[in-house]
């Protein structure tokens, strides 16, 4: 059961990755990164159970935290330089 969930999460991470590559606007990329991070948190938690040592959930907590902080950092970065056009093609 864990394997199935982990597999699906990997697939979703792949999809998010494709979106991060394609992403017409920057916000799509940010969204994809955020989504990717959330899925990584879940994957870490499940991997812990899969390996039989679920004591290592600290790492998942750190991931969730870091994900949040980096998203905020990115958003703040754009509040600074919002004069520039947001579309990437140039």
């Amino acid at each position, binding site marked *: 059961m864990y394997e199935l969930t982990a597999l699906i999460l990997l697939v979703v991470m792949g999809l998010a990755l494709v979106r991060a590559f394609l992403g017409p606007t920057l916000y799509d990329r940010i969204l994809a990164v955020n989504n990717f991070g959330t899925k990584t948190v879940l994957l870490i938690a499940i991997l812990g159970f899969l*390996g*039989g*040592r679920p*004591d*290592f959930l600290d790492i998942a907590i750190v991931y969730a935290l870091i994900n949040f902080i980096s998203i905020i950092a990115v958003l703040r970065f754009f509040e600074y330089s919002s004069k520039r056009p947001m579309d990437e093609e140039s």
Partner: protein
Amino acid sequence: MNIIGLYNYWIVVVLMAIGFFIVIAHENLIKKLIGLSIFQTAVFFLYISMGKVVGGTAPILDDKWHLYSNPLPHVLILTAIVVGISTTAVGLALVVRIQEAYGSIEEHEIQTLNAQDQIECQLEAYGFMKNNAFSVKSLDE
């Protein structure tokens, strides 16, 4: 079997090649730093994957487990990561200073500016005028 069992090294080599390529082929200094960090990560992978034992578990002692992965590479890499971020930070600080001094972080632009600067300094030291044909010629060299 003989070849397949080595796949971890190949991943490392591919990552290393990508990082190396970014470092030498791109001119943007920040890109170079990122390439450097990819290269660094490749080295980390090399160490960590060598420390892995099949069927082993994380090196935190517990009564239920008897086979552990090798903890030594973990220690080395743990400190290496933190040192890596410090060096990256110093590199970024240098990049910022370069941007302030030259107005650019592209390598060839910086080199051109540097060469111009040097030649002009030399010419001035030898007492040449800046605006004659000579200085233009030496710029081309």
